[in-house]
């Protein structure tokens, strides 16, 4: 076994209200390509930011060639030999290609930058990556794929021992991905340790040697790519060993069967292939699939956040065509988005103001809700959903993730919707709140509310879904009902190849 270059031991990282890494280990060897996998919120990006000095660890050790290191910023990490290339290529579009490659370490003569040498060296360096381009042109004149290779060339040239590629393939086409893989294998042969973050499983199997999987801020394990089956891999990512999942009877409950929402062949270019979905009153429809499978995209299309390119939506028996979320809210829908912090809460506003929002939109802004009524509504929901807070005037950002999520739920419930779409409602919240939210979902559908719940927690989906729609590669692959709803079946559907 080759030598270990980078070792992370027992890394902890906490943010206000979130324990983002709970004692994670990670080992990278020289001359290997190591996939770092996990669903959104599993802790991948936090771990990478800890490695690259963007965040400082709260506890644990980082050893580079057996020396403990404490990078305080990306500059430190780079100087130590840890370079990162991001999906959105963090180079400078206004500078030339050569300037980007040598920024901050330009060769000098008599104290002044020697531009002839900068340009010659850059051209020479890029030839090694099969890039024969004019290095004196601004970076912005080249495609993302080329920019990415330039970023890699820069990273490696800065005497990198460790190269971190954070979702580099997300915006590349198939040929460009192949070029990137060839370069990655070259670099591997030169003894560089490569961390490869992606959510394309095909690419993991095509190029990596080992896989480290994170889930819910914890390490699931390190595996040899060659000996880990696709089903096992997905099992690890989504959180249940296949064997451990025996009979798990879905808690199905009778539904009226009256159609509430019917979506036919809804699609959006490069986002979702035509997909059907139907929801009855009092029914919970689960959306299963990995990150990037089209789960979130489907939710957004139904709610009118993104414009659909084709398809028909019927809601309450009426054909509808939402051009914005506002239309959807007025028609009686609600959406709890996946990214609570950015798309859900309004951090500086109070709990009361956050709760009242959707109802206000539904009523129209000119119809003022009196302060007394607002307080009444807020207090009722805070009590009913047992939001842990002393005061409804507290800014919502001071609450924990779970309580924030309850407030967002309250926001929608206050608007009295007939269909609620929850995208990853339990992400990043602690176990206690997690169970409460699931109980709440059940209670809501007992009261006749219809729900669409997208989740990567299979157990969760099994626990409350009447029907599970499985998505893979931006399209619906199957729909499971009744006894078919069990983690094993869902996982098979996701993994089927």
């Amino acid at each position, binding site marked *: 076994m080759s030598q270990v270059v980078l070792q992370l031991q027992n890394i902890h990282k906490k943010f206000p209200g979130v324990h983002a890494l709970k004692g994670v280990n990670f080992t990278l060897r020289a001359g290997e390509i190591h996939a770092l996998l996990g669903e959104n919120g599993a802790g991948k990006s936090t771990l990478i930011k800890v490695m690259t000095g963007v965040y400082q660890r709260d506890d644990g050790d980082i050893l580079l060639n057996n020396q403990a290191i404490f990078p305080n910023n*990306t500059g430190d990490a780079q*100087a130590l030999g840890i370079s990162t290339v991001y999906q959105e290529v963090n180079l*400078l*579009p206004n500078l030339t290609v050569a300037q980007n490659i040598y*920024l901050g*370490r*330009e060769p000098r003569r008599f104290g002044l930058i020697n531009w002839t040498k900068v340009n010659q060296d850059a051209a020479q360096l890029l030839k090694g990556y099969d890039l024969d381009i004019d290095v004196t042109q601004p970076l*912005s004149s080249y495609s993302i794929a080329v920019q990415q290779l330039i970023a890699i060339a820069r990273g490696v040239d800065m005497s990198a021992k460790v190269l971190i590629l954070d979702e580099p393939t997300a915006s590349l086409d198939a040929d460009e991905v192949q070029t990137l893989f060839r370069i990655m294998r070259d670099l591997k042969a030169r003894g560089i340790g490569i961390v490869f973050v992606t959510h394309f499983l095909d690419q993991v199997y095509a190029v990596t040697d080992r896989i480290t999987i994170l889930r819910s801020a914890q390490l699931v394990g390190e595996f040899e790519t060659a000996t880990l089956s696709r089903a096992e891999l997905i099992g690890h990512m989504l959180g249940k060993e296949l064997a451990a999942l025996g009979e798990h009877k879905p808690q199905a409950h009778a539904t009226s069967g009256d159609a509430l929402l019917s979506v036919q062949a809804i699609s959006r270019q490069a986002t979702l292939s035509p997909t059907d979905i139907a929801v009855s009153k009092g029914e919970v429809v689960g959306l299963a699939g990995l990150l990037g499978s089209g789960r979130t995209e489907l939710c957004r299309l139904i709610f009118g956040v993104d414009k659909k390119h084709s398809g028909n939506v019927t809601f309450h028996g009426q054909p509808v065509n939402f051009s914005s979320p506002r239309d959807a809210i007025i028609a009686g829908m609600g959406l709890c988005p996946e990214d609570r912090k950015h798309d859900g809460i309004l951090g500086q506003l109070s709990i009361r103001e956050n709760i009242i929002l959707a109802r206000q939109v539904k009523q129209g802004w000119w119809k003022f809700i009196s302060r007394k009524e607002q307080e009444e509504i807020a207090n009722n929901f805070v009590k009913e959903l047992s939001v842990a807070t002393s005061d409804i005037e507290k800014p919502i950002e001071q609450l924990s993730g779970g309580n924030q999520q309850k407030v967002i739920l309250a926001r929608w419930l206050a608007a009295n919707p007939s269909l609620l779409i929850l995208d990853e409602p339990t992400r990043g919240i602690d176990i206690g709140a997690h169970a409460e939210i699931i109980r709440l979902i059940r209670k809501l559908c007992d009261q006749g509310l219809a729900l669409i719940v997208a989740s990567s927690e299979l157990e969760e989906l099994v626990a409350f879904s009447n029907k599970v729609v499985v998505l893979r590669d931006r399209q619906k692959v199957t729909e499971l009902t009744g006894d078919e709803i069990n983690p094993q079946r869902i996982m098979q559907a996701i993994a089927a190849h």
Partner: protein
Amino acid sequence: MLNRKFIPLTITCCLFFLLFGIGSVQFEGFGSTQVFFNLFSDNAFLIIAAVGMTFVILSGGIDLSVGAVIALTGVVCSVLISRYQLHPLIVFPIVLIGGTIFGAIMGAIIHYYKMQPFIVTLAGMFFARGLASVISEESIPIEHEFYNQVSAFGFEVLGGAWIGSSTIICLVVLVIAIITAHYTRFGGRVYAIGGDANSAALMGIPLAQTTIRIYAISAFLASLAGIVYSFYTFSGYSLAAVGVELDAIAAVVIGGTLLTGGYGYMFGTLMGVLIMGVVQTYISFDGTLSSWWTKIVIGLLLFCFIALQQLLIKTTPR
């Protein structure tokens, strides 16, 4: 083919020579080397201040304190020289160092408190202007043999044009600034921060150090501009140089530097000041036009250049 990034600069240069040519054809004596070099000597303090402003704008910031720092420098110089009888060669280092520290503090506040440069330097502007007025509301004359020597210093060049001390100072500043902007690592960092501060940080650029240095340089050059300004006026006055920061910003933009940062050339700033100067000269040669026409022409030019920049950004091939 002409490189796209040189388009604004080329237009600025062509425009300058066009205006100068029109003036030369129209008025006798306009097209002389003396008139040309007067553009430098009349605007030396503005060139110096605009050079500092160029660094700031290239980094995506703005410095509104420049005019006030010029006035404060003049007031401090005149008080120390006339009232306390200090030699100017002792006073100059004091005001230059003081100005630099003032700028460094603004830079540090901008970086560490993540404040808008606009607000921080606006506060700096009020502070410097207020301090100057507190020291003296009256204009204080400077009488010192050294000042007479400095203003008499100079030499003749071809065509019998006279190059004075302020022209020499501003040309030296310009040359050093061009070298700094284009041939040092610091210069690269300024462009990098202006392009995308976040990416620059991820590429290992020391943001704090660079930001502080940029504002320190701007304030240093503003102080130097204040000294040069006092060579014209032989006095220090707290209400002097009002609005010079805006002239400097206008010169930088007309010189082809993008207000959002990241693109532009130091040399363009010189051309920006010279264009403003040539318009002024034209109006004074004409004699019938109010000198406020300068402002109107500058306003139109600014508008055209901003429109041009937007056009270039929108048509950039992706």
